[in-house]
């Protein structure tokens, strides 16, 4: 079920009303969340419900086993047993993820590698359907098992709450990837309807829909056209193509996150922030603190820190940075383009480590000011261009596509006037992007761009803005496009 579909517009109010009519019985309310979430997921493909319940059940079971060992045994074998249980759960979950997501990639590369060495081997690739959201809920379930092992959280015996934690429908298929330490305890306590929170959630849903339907889907039309026919276009048109994709991916993914966070608020549940105005970053390190925060911090906590983080020598920090970015790229998909994209970002990061600037800019740019300084504009602009080039690898079908695109991009035709079918219509999209940037800039100190609208503006003005946003959403409705991050 897509957030930007009529199905969800019917599903959400029904679930909302039933959910709040069950406030007297917490267990029943949690069970209702599980049923609604499984229905939400099952409407895509019911066959994968068993897979998700299998992952959830074994992660829950690993917690129970660890709890039993901790309470019953105190001998020297305890730690080894705990390690074994946690590792088994990690291997099991990663094997499922690996099979569905990476099997064909490894088979094809294995076959090609042997071919290169002059050996023909015959391993068949399989027609595997990638279950929607598998990377997201697997990582969420994994975080629980690791946190229990590391004693960051007490294992839960409440299986219903645990199923609700893994399958909670607003963030099930594309995140934010929640931590057990943050989300799970919220299912143990009674939720009370909070009017202000619900209004805030509705406002965030509205803004998320605007980003998705008005900006992302419009940008997608031109980004797809230019990327799919790149050989026919000049460098300047290709530049415009990657510009459109840069905003498409941001508004698509952060729009989804806004709808997910807003929807959770309607149910009295807080989920973590996923984006913090990343395109206003002054260097690549700041960008990665502001982009897909739930995944970045997941990798930081469960891979980067265990590898030694930034405590060792510079060589070790650089090694760890490369590992993190390559793994992050690979998480996005079984394609070399994602690995190169990860590598590219690592290469942009290294100079900051060497100069010790990677921890600079933890505040919001131009805090309390209307305009940034010229220096800040240059830094934001430079970072934006580097990110935009990186997205070409992310968007390309394969490495050859990306290289050809970039080489055409940096040709002399970069300095010509862009030309493509529907160029004048695309001007409307560019104007919309400019309006969007201004709104984001004004609201950059909030959790989302229009968060402070209720505080800053009087009711008639506020309502006028809401209606303009809604009319814009309806006007641009109809280009129904799936959210990019569903494929991951």
């Amino acid at each position, binding site marked *: 079920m897509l957030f930007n579909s*009529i*199905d969800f517009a019917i599903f959400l109010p029904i679930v909302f009303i039933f959910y709040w009519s069950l406030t007297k019985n917490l267990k029943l309310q949690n069970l209702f969340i599980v049923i609604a979430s499984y229905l939400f997921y099952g409407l895509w493909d019911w066959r994968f419900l068993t897979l998700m319940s299998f992952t959830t059940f074994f992660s829950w079971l690993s917690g129970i086993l660890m709890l039993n060992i901790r309470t019953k045994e105190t001998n020297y074998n305890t730690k080894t047993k705990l390690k074994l249980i946690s590792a088994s759960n990690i291997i099991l979950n990663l094997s499922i993820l690996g099979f569905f997501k990476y099997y064909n990639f490894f088979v094809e590369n294995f076959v090609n590698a042997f071919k290169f060495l002059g050996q023909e081997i015959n391993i068949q690739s399989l027609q595997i359907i990638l279950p929607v959201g598998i990377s997201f809920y697997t990582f969420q379930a994994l975080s629980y098992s690791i946190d229990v092992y590391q004693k960051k959280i007490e294992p839960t015996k409440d299986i219903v709450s645990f199923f609700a934690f893994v399958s909670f429908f607003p963030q099930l298929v594309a995140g934010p990837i929640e931590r057990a330490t943050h989300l799970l305890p919220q299912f143990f306590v009674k939720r009370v309807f909070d*009017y202000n929170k619900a*209004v805030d959630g509705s406002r965030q849903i509205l803004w998320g829909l605007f980003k998705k339907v008005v900006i992302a889907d419009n940008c997608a039309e031109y980004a797809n056209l230019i990327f799919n026919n790149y050989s026919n276009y000049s460098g300047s048109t290709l530049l415009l193509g990657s510009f459109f994709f840069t905003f498409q991916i941001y508004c698509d993914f952060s729009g989804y996150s806004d709808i997910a966070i807003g929807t959770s608020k309607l149910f009295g549940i807080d989920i973590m922030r996923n984006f913090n105005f990343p395109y206003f970053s002054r260097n690549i390190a700041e960008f990665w603190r502001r982009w897909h925060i739930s995944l970045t911090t997941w990798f930081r906590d469960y891979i980067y820190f265990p590898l030694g983080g930034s405590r060792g020598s510079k060589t070790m920090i650089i090694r760890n940075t490369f590992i993190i970015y390559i793994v992050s790229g690979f998480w996005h998909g079984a394609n070399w383009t994602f690995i190169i994209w990860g590598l590219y970002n690592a290469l942009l990061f290294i100079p900051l480590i060497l100069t010790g600037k990677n921890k600079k800019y933890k505040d919001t740019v131009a805090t309390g000011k209307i305009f940034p300084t010229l220096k800040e504009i240059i830094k934001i602009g430079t970072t934006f261009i580097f990110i935009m080039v990186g997205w070409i690898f992310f968007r390309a079908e394969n490495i050859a596509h990306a290289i050809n695109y970039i080489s055409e991009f940096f040709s002399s035709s970069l300095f010509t006037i862009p030309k493509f079918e529907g160029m004048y219509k695309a001007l409307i999209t560019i104007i919309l992007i400019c309006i969007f940037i201004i709104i984001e800039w004004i609201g950059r100190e909030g959790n989302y761009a229009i968060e402070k609208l209720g505080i800053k503006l009087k009711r008639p003005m506020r*309502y006028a803005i809401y209606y303009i946003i809604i009319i814009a959403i309806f006007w641009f*409705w*109809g*280009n129904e496009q799936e959210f990019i991050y569903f494929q991951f």
Partner: protein
Amino acid sequence: MKKFTKKIIWFIAPFFIYFFAIIYIYINNSKNDSIPAINFSNSYSFNEKIRFMKTKDKTASILAIGSSMTLDNLDSKTILANLNIGNYINAASWGMSIYNDYIFLKSLSKIYNIKCVIISSNIIDFKTPGINVDFQFIENYLESDNYSIVTFEKFINTFSPKYYMRNFSYVKKVRNDSTQIEYLNYDNFGAVSFPKDNFNINKKRWVADNLDSPCIELQYNYLDSISNYCKINKIELLFFQSPYREGIWDNFNSSKLNKLNLHIKRIKSILKSDNHFFVNSNEKLWPDSLFCDATHMNCIGAQLYTKFCFDKKNSLIIKK
């Protein structure tokens, strides 16, 4: 919670009018001539054709599919006179590529009991990727009644006010102005006949031979797929190569002629492998007076061209 629910309801109340408008458009789409066709694709011509097909019963066993070469250049009466089996429908529309034809044929096979498929084509059908169509939506729409929830759900999810606003005035033109190339007022079988006189000829279209850009290799594979599909499903496939007007043909240089001949040779060999029938109408010259532009014929041209193709077919049967 009551306060919140109340506020939300009041807030969205004005949009109920909008939803009523959507429902009205959905229910009256095929009945009311001032309402544009539903947006199944990014081609208005295709959408209009689906609207037309919805109003017809699904008994046709002869189907013409393809681009405007099929839509405008095949004369329905001549076809019916030559093929004495069942009912006929021209399901063609502007901008269809061979790939579109293949997917559309497979979709229509689920709805119609097809015995014969006619494609009238020009090299341009092999040069464009075609139009973006949601064929699942079309299958649901053509098979269901006006009150199907599945179809309505799809309709509302793809409902674009932008599209309807743009096309409210456009439909008047395409449904009424027979002097324009956009004209889409179908005969009883779904074909369009351009008038012989007073047609508003576009100078650019009059000289466009579309031979400079390369063909998309995959389109030949899709033709092969159509050919195979028809063979497997015991469907007779008639493939007609649509002609250029004489003035264009006379000005072809050797490079252009080679391109066209190579294209025809490839089509012939694909169809021959599955024993399907092919007519190359460029074997003879077609006077400019039979055309509305370089490749689209007027009603007289369409009659003569269709007759020419079927005469070829009939003579082959006699020879056999």
